[in-house]
């Protein structure tokens, strides 16, 4: 075996790959070969580090040195300086935007200091295309323990005790969902992984699948054992080619080692997984629509009940869990439910991955304990608002969520607190907006999205959202009236109350929450025909109001 003394971990997530991280890997290998260091240094392509703002990223271990924005042409310098002479390449180190100083080590970066990585534990650590590296970090050990020492009900009780709730948006207790499916007796049941990540800007599920696909496979097998399913489906959007590629590799490696297939760990339990590709419709993240799509039908939701736990895929009991939820399962089994429930708040346990985006210095994926303050996420991990502008609002929960204002930044965030302030966790999108963003325009953007993504099955969602969008367009064109604002509220409430599925039940949230928090700005649009942020083109003949 090769005795490499240095490991260079190069980010191979979609973000960094699009910025030539593949070429960088090749360049590093070429230079190392040229200088005769190939046997001492290993270059590994890992999953996403989450620090997408500054990609491509290289982390050098065991030195814990973190290089950012590395180009293929930098490979020569890194080898000549770091590998040969043991000196850091200063200008590739990360420059903290707040303290304005270079940081060498990953542990010292404020972006990582407050993070607790459970779901993302292996992203940026292992090579996702090598099952042995996953096994080295205790991979498939949870599955082995479960199959050889626990009954299905014990597994369910353990997950219930951990307090894990669904990470896809709804926040339904995972163990309870498993129990419901377990109780419905049938000769055929299914476990389904929802990898139809649809929120604009959210990419945690993709990153987990790209960086640590085996953790999802392992968790699905555990869930299959718990509910009594021998077949799993991963419903993934075809827009995620790299995740699909790595999943396919992972599945075939797991089959080869007998970690998927028949008689796993010499027990009577058989389990296998198949991928189903989706066309990227937002509504297919809703579980009944997803199931219809897996069956080959139109991606339209059904009225519930019956819930999938009673009658799901091909009318059999089925359990649908999200990617991030699954990624939490193996550590919960290995470290115990008490460890997990010791993290987070009273009703929301563990961590949540957020996709931090918008006008914030450190755009990327962050995983923090439930109950972390939004202020810490934006100002410490995120490094503050770009260009030192003033924060106006934070949008969480994507097209189903709402806006949070400056005054609410100190609320510890979890499922319930976000709901209480008119937003929601959703899948964890978090978009930071500054004073140059127009809230009316933001609402319009989300409504445009939901109008397009509405499947059209029920009237309130199909027509209601269209009307909402039309009214918002009218306002941003400078033709709105005060009555329009009332109409937005009445119509929004009506859509929420009468839509069939989660899409319509939450789609008016962006409008309603911005109307609540930024009514002045809406009034400015309809009364004075002025867009204070200077965004709405229909109103651009007026000069933006001078800010104090």
């Amino acid at each position, binding site marked *: 075996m090769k005795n*490499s*003394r240095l490991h260079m971990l190069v980010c191979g997530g979609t973000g960094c790959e699009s910025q030539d991280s593949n070429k960088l890997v090749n360049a590093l290998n070429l230079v190392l070969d040229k200088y005769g260091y190939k046997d001492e240094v290993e270059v590994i392509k890992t999953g996403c580090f989450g620090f997408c703002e500054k990609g491509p990223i290289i982390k050098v*271990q*065991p030195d814990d040195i973190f290089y950012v924005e590395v180009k293929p042409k930098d490979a020569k310098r890194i080898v000549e300086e770091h590998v040969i002479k043991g000196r850091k390449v200063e200008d590739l180190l990360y420059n903290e935007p707040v303290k304005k100083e270079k940081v060498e080590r990953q542990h010292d970066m404020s972006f990582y200091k407050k993070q607790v990585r459970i779901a993302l534990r292996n992203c940026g650590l292992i090579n996702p295309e090598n099952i*042995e590296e996953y*096994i*080295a970090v205790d991979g498939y050990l949870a599955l*082995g323990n479960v199959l*050889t020492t626990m009954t299905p009900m014990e597994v369910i009780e353990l997950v219930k005790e951990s307090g894990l709730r669904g990470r896809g948006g709804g926040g339904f207790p995972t163990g309870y969902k498993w129990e419901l499916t377990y109780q419905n007796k049938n000769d055929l049941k299914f476990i389904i992984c929802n990898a139809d990540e649809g929120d604009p800007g959210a990419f945690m599920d993709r990153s987990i699948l790209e960086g640590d696909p085996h953790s999802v496979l392992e968790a699905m097998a555990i869930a299959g054992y718990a509910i009594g399913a021998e077949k799993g489906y991963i419903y993934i959007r075809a827009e995620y080619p790299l995740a699909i590629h790595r999943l396919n590799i992972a599945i075939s490696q797991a089959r080869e080692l007998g970690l998927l297939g028949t008689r796993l760990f010499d027990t009577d339990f058989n389990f296998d997984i198949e991928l189903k590709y989706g066309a990227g419709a937002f509504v297919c993240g809703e579980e009944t629509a997803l199931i219809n799509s897996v069956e080959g039908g139109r991606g339209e939701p059904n009225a519930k009940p019956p819930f999938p736990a009673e009658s799901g895929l091909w009318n059999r009991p089925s359990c649908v869990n999200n990617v991030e939820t699954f990624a939490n399962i193996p550590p919960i089994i290995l470290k115990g439910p008490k460890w997990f429930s010791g993290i987070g708040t009273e009703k929301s346990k563990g961590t949540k991955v957020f996709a931090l985006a918008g006008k914030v210095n450190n755009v990327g994926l962050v995983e923090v304990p439930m109950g972390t303050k939004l202020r810490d996420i934006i100002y410490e991990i995120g490094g503050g608002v770009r260009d030192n502008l003033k924060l106006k609002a934070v949008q969480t929960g994507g097209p189903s969520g709402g806006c949070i204002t400056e005054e609410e930044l100190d609320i510890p965030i979890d499922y319930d607190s976000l709901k209480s302030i008119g937003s929601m966790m959703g899948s964890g999108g978090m978009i930071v907006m500054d004073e140059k963003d127009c809230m009316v325009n933001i609402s319009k953007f989300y409504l445009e999205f939901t109008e397009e993504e509405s499947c059209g099955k029920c009237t309130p969602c199909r027509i209601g959202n269209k009307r909402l969008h039309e009214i918002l367009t009218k306002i941003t064109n400078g033709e709105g009236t005060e009555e329009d604002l009332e109409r937005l509220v009445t119509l929004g409430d009506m859509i929420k109350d009468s839509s069939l599925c989660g899409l319509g039940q939450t789609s008016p949230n962006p409008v309603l929450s911005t109307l609540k928090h930024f009514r002045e700005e809406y009034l400015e649009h309809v009364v004075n025909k002025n867009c204070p942020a200077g965004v709405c083109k229909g109103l651009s003949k007026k000069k933006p109001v001078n800010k104090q």
Partner: protein
Amino acid sequence: MKSLEELKAIREKAMKKLNVRTAGEEEIKILVGMGTCGISAGARETLTAMVEEINNRNLQNVVISQVGCLGNCFGEPIVQVNIPNQKSILYGKVTPAKGKKIIEKHILNGEILEDLIIGEAFH
């Protein structure tokens, strides 16, 4: 996969390789000076020999790291040993053989090799 033992056997083998990567704060650190003077005095050979020794002895809690010039160019190759909560020790003129000895005596048995010490380490 037939048993947990089979899985654990794969894990043991693979963990050895990942040891370098999962290095944490609590581990013993060996620093090898790799400035120009260090390299010309044979630091790379010393480093390689020590890495090999650590691998052969399957030491999980030791990481070896190269650093720039440590400033004591007269005593190259230089090796610094940092054991958590202990004073750092700076060894000079460490040949590959002496490097292996440092691991055997100092790291494994806690015996400091007095005659190899060349000075005070600062951190």
